[in-house]
């Protein structure tokens, strides 16, 4: 069987884009959740942080669900074998997403400091765990997984190898940097200043950790390069280097006070990193670190062309629409959040909800 066809390669790219979009968008949600304890002085600050992503976090998370659904439809074997293999890792992410998901909606519902504190911690921990596990997972895809005929069977422990842990920390730092820049764009006054201040060390850490991750991956090599259609190693390396450069540029820009451009820089770094990950993997969807022939390829995992054509038509019609109205939401809520004048910590201040 061919390692890929035009249609299946297109869907591989679509799924890459969905993941990239997911990490670009939910990346700053995670980041805001993670840096909230660093930049907040009181309950109102923490509330501002949560409300900064309030109107959009749910829509951002749907990118993940669509990536999951699209993988199921376009690559049933990828969906089936990967998730049973990475069972506990995916479970951890799901738990983290549940805990942080309800934290947004529940936090303001009871007028009790302890209650709000609990959900602040839930939001922080959920964001942190999800970001870390995603980083570990995708670094593993770059290095390849030890695969047997039954797929990956190494369990959670097998995923927690040194390069993957560094990759996980890199994801943490990149998202935290991305989120702190988002906060500096969405808030005002002292909170904005503090968000800008924490952005610098976070940006430094992100650039260094991502550089190490890229270098480690480049040094490790990949046995599945022998598969026909594999992208020359220079391409993902170049994308990875550009991602690190974008982070460095973002760091420079934020020190100059150009937060908007800096945010574009972290966004670019995330998109470029995901480009690198998918370029490294192609034409494998589950790349084997123990021999090219064991890899699950795009061609072998893909659905029948009929399904792919149907999906292509549906996606071509509706994706522009989705981008349009998601974009519109950001436009509607483009203003910076203001600290309430009385700094009243009493909950439902506005709208009573």
């Amino acid at each position: 069987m061919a390692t890929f066809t035009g249609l299946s390669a297109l869907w591989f790219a679509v799924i890459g884009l969905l993941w990239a979009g997911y990490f670009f968008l939910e990346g700053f949600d995670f980041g805001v959740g993670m840096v909230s304890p660093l930049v907040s002085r009181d309950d109102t600050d923490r509330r501002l942080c949560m409300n900064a992503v309030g109107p959009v976090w749910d829509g951002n998370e749907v990118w993940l669900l669509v990536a999951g659904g699209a993988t199921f439809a376009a690559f049933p074997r990828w969906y089936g074998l990967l998730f049973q293999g990475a069972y506990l890792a995916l479970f951890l992410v799901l738990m983290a997403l549940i805990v942080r998901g309800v934290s947004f909606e529940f936090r303001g519902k009871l007028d009790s400091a302890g209650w709000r504190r609990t959900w602040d911690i839930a939001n922080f921990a959920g964001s942190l765990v999800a970001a870390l596990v995603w980083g570990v997972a995708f670094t593993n895809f770059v290095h390849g997984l030890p695969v047997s005929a039954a797929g990956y069977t190494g369990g959670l422990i097998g995923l927690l190898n040194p390069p993957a842990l560094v990759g996980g920390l890199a994801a943490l730092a990149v998202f935290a940097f991305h989120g702190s820049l988002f906060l500096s764009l969405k808030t005002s006054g002292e909170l904005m200043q503090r968000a800008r201040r924490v952005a610098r060390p976070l940006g430094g850490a992100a650039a260094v950790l991502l550089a190490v991750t890229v270098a480690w991956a480049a040094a490790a090599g990949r046995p599945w390069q022998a598969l026909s259609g594999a992208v020359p190693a220079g391409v993902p390396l170049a994308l990875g280097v550009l991602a690190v450069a974008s982070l460095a540029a973002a760091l420079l820009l934020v020190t100059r006070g150009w937060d908007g451009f800096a945010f574009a820089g972290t966004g670019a770094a995330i998109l470029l990193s995901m480009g690198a990950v998918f370029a490294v993997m192609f034409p494998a969807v589950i790349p084997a670190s123990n021999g090219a022939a064991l890899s699950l390829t795009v061609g072998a995992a893909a659905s029948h062309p009929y399904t792919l054509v149907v999906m292509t038509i549906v996606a071509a019609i509706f994706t522009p629409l989705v981008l349009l109205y998601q974009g519109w939401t950001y436009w509607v809520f483009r203003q910076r959040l203001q600290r309430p004048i009385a700094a009243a910590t009493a909950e439902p201040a506005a709208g009573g909800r």
Partner: protein
Amino acid sequence: MTLDLARWQFAIVTVFHFFFVPMTIGLCFLVAVMQTLAVLRKDETWDRLSRFFGRIFLISLAVGVVTGIVLEFQFGLNWSAYSVFVGNIFGAPLAIEGLLAFFLESTFIGLWVFGRGRLSPRLHLATIWVVSAGTILSAFFILAANAWMQHPVGYTVEDGQAVLTDFGALLGNSTLWASFVHTVAAAFATGGALVLGISIWRAHRAPGDVERDAFRRGATLMCVVVLVTVVVTAVSGDLQARLMDVQQPMKMAAAEALYNTQNGASFSLLTIGNLSGQPIFQIRVPHLLSLIADLSWNGQVIGINQMQATEAARYGAGNYTPVLWLTYWCFRAMIGAGVLMILGSAWGIWLSWRRRLVPSRWFRRAALLGIALPVVANASGWIFTEAGRQPWIVYGLMETAKGVSTVSAADVAGTLAAFVAVYSILAVLAAILVVRAARHPLDRVDEAPGPDETPSAPGLVY
């Protein structure tokens, strides 16, 4: 062992998710109706009610959303072989559900929650209708996936995978359309029953005439909503039964625990003893099962023994009979709850006509208990239809035992325990918050964020 645990895990995470889904679909639609009445008639009462029930809707939505994330991945986690077999077909509606429905819901809910006072009233009203459309679209696509498991259409099997050959057939599946109407009508009834129970209770305890009047109006409307939607649910359910009689005769027989083929089969309201064919005590309605199955007085309903023999001959030796006590009692719980809802809402309409809706003590108690009826019906209906398909995961194509992942029983057991623990906490918290929201005073209009309050700056809602 992995198989049983995986089945328990799927049953628990799905049924729990589905406590909130119909509630959310129903409440969203009803809040949209209330807000429409408020905007079009410039009626303050409906505006207050829409805000009041909007709060409860958001709690239900939040739990529904987070538990829904789990389901998107549950197939890959625990049902890997199934996923590989059906992905070509089953995955498509799932992906389309995300692209068409989840994006709409999640984006516009943000606009609705944070856009109050910032978007114009009509645009703000439009956002909640878009959310409602999203929830209903979502129901359609996930039911398209499920209907294919009940009654596979538009496919061939190639190299051990079911392959889609006709997307139109997938979306035109008769099973899908019947269950879509049934599920959405039941969801509206679920929301209606909740609004009814809370409204009656609040109208009774209202501190003043304004609040009493507002909740009385809400309750009166909900009596009509519940009656109409439960009747639609019943009619579409009957349509489903006739499709089931042709498409899954074993499930029809299992609904009654009917062992042998019968003409003019009767329907037992309840059975004491066991369902082995020699019950100790039964109350039976003559000919009713035949009427349910094919709308005829003396129509033939095929028995379990005959179906077992037919399927064994077609698919090879094996047990093709579902767990009968489960299908039998779930079928009765579903129908019984529906009948009680029809009677209860008709009673409410009569009381309302006699202007005794709020004073009636017995109706108040019934309406509060009635909140649970659709929840029971929804859960038992789904347990019936999924358990009644067993041993098949895809009817006639793949057995449930062949669809399971190759993960260790310990992993499934551990995650199952964690899901149960976390979901239990979520259930308690959601219940506390809903009760609290139900006690919340109706907003006075001056509490609403007015245009004087820096209209363009996003507010702090969470």
